[in-house]
């Protein structure tokens, strides 16, 4: 929720971490997949500053094979947006959450109705990767009114003036897309990750978190020499898939999140 000064719970949590000399850690997991609520709680308990929850969509164009597979499995198991939000609303997470999903699920529900359903479920932020700056108008109006922080993506392809407009409209944090490509693990950190983080840090005081292609604690530490933190998606979801998305997945993800936390704390 956004307080009268304009800082929502998501941004407040990330700023608190950064302003005390720490680095922000935001794992992503696919909502509706197996024991996802336990995974969510485990990730939070293992040291996440916030958690991003994906609401699966049939045509996730910003996602690579791992998150595509997780989305398909969740959809086949009957996951739907109201049920996911309802479950989120009934779960004590302990850290702020942000929903990541695609424009059509929001549009189908209605911009205003979707924004209020996020707020009602206690969700702080929204990340909609197929709603770029020019198309944010109706969504941001609805989200602002409901007190939902809209996190915008900033990509390496953007010229400087575009980055400035993006950070001006972003809330919660700014999501720096670390490379040219869709979500998925990469063996090394792309040079573009540090470059985009630097360019964003130069124009904003918002927390700058790098996502897409951050796969290991080492890569997280490397990019956090410049960035304020990382979003870790496919590395988390792959482990959920490998453990059959069952009860064991919470433990496996907790271990992974803890290893990122430790590495980032050690610097």
């Amino acid at each position, binding site marked *: 929720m956004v307080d009268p000064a304009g800082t929502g719970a998501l941004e407040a949590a990330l700023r608190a971490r950064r302003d005390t000399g720490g680095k922000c850690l935001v794992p992503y997991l696919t909502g509706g997949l197996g024991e996802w609520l336990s995974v969510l709680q485990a990730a939070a308990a293992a040291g996440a500053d916030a958690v991003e929850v994906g609401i699966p969509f049939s045509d996730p*164009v910003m996602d690579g094979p791992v998150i595509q597979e997780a989305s398909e499995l969740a959809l086949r198991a009957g996951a739907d947006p109201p049920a996911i939000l309802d479950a989120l609303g009934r779960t004590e997470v302990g850290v702020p959450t942000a929903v990541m999903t695609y424009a059509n699920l929001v549009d*189908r529900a209605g911009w205003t109705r979707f924004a209020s359903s996020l707020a009602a479920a206690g969700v702080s932020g929204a990340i909609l990767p197929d709603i770029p700056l020019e198309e944010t108008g109706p969504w941001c109006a609805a989200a602002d009114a409901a007190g939902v922080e809209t996190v915008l*993506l900033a990509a390496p392809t953007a010229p400087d003036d*575009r980055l400035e407009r*993006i950070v001006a409209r972003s809330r919660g944090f700014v999501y720096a897309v670390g490379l*040219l*490509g869709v979500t998925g693990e990469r063996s090394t950190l792309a040079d573009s990750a540090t470059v985009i983080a630097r360019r964003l840090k130069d124009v904003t005081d918002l927390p700058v978190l790098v996502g897409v292609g951050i796969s290991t604690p080492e890569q997280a530490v490397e990019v956090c020499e410049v960035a304020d933190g990382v979003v870790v998606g496919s590395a988390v979801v792959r482990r959920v898939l490998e453990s059959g998305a069952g009860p064991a997945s919470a433990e496996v993800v907790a271990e992974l999140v803890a290893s990122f936390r430790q590495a980032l704390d050690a610097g």
Partner: protein
Amino acid sequence: MMGEPDETGRFGEYGGRFVPETLVPALIELDRGFREAWADPAFRSELDSLLADYAGRPSPLTECHRLSAELGVRVLFKREDLNHTGSHKINNVLGQALLARRMGKTRLVAETGAGQHGVATATAAALLGMECLVYMGEVDIARQELNVFRMRLLGAEVTPARSGSRTLKDAVNEAMRDWVATVEHSHYCLGSVMGPHPYPWMVREFHRVIGSEAAVQCRTLLGGPPDVVVACVGGGSNAAGIFSGFAEDPSVELVGVEPAGGAAVGRGVPGIVHGMRSYLMQDEFGQVLEAHSISAGLDYPGVGPEHSHLASSGRATYHQVVDAEVVDAFVLASRTEGIIPALEPAHALAWVVRERESLSGRTVLINMSGRGDKDVAQMMDVLADRI
């Protein structure tokens, strides 16, 4: 009607640019690049030369005497099936490939359903010496083997799309994902009047030649326009191309024909996918539904945004035909005119056959958007009992 979209890339309330942030600068650059090229006489004349000397334009207008006698409707075919590579798709592809080269891109990425757009893109890439990668749904690869081989023969790489329905919709997703990663040197050669702005407008402009030629040819043959213009609609490019030659004349009825199993206008509601707001077949939560059609080229749950606008404004009407009607039309054109149509334009003819009573005595122009060679293997099975 059928002018430029507004500055947000919308036709009425449809269109826009719903893509990952990474692609927006490329789309802005493409919009600028297309405007400049389209206003440049040198670009236009190079494209016109290719369309004439390479693709074989103008395509003829054929008066279908025996078919007309059979139906009691005067039927004309605009013969896009006679273009090089066998369909209208080459018009758009030559335009985009020239534009890509002008913008310094060295690689073309494309999606394909029936394989016609993929073959056209592979052809243009071979002609201009560019690299080419085509995404095609696994299901379509199995039913359009010949086109897969043609693409590979032409030097293109064909990569199966294995997610979702494994048809055209998923091939578009894969092509977009590829483009997100390769946008600096690749051009996404989109195959229909769909996707984010400027594609729906740009692709229609590259196909405008169909309508412009047909309008002149009809004036010569008939002394004026036909009463009705009919085209099949997948994404809607052949329809947009031929409609654009007649949209200004309110006396001409414009009819789009969708497959019943992939009828975005007929059975969809507005939604957002593949970069555009348009009619879309989707469930109550907004998950996109899988289309099912005998024709791989029309097996698509969405439709180009300008068609949503033409439908909402009432300027064009959209109707559905079922696979069985399409098969009959496929045989009918073959037997009465010696023209084996692609399954896609057989949809347009199928609607005329069904409506022959109400169309009686009128003149109908059908866009014969492609030839049926690619479908012959599939139809051998379908028609095993009849032929």
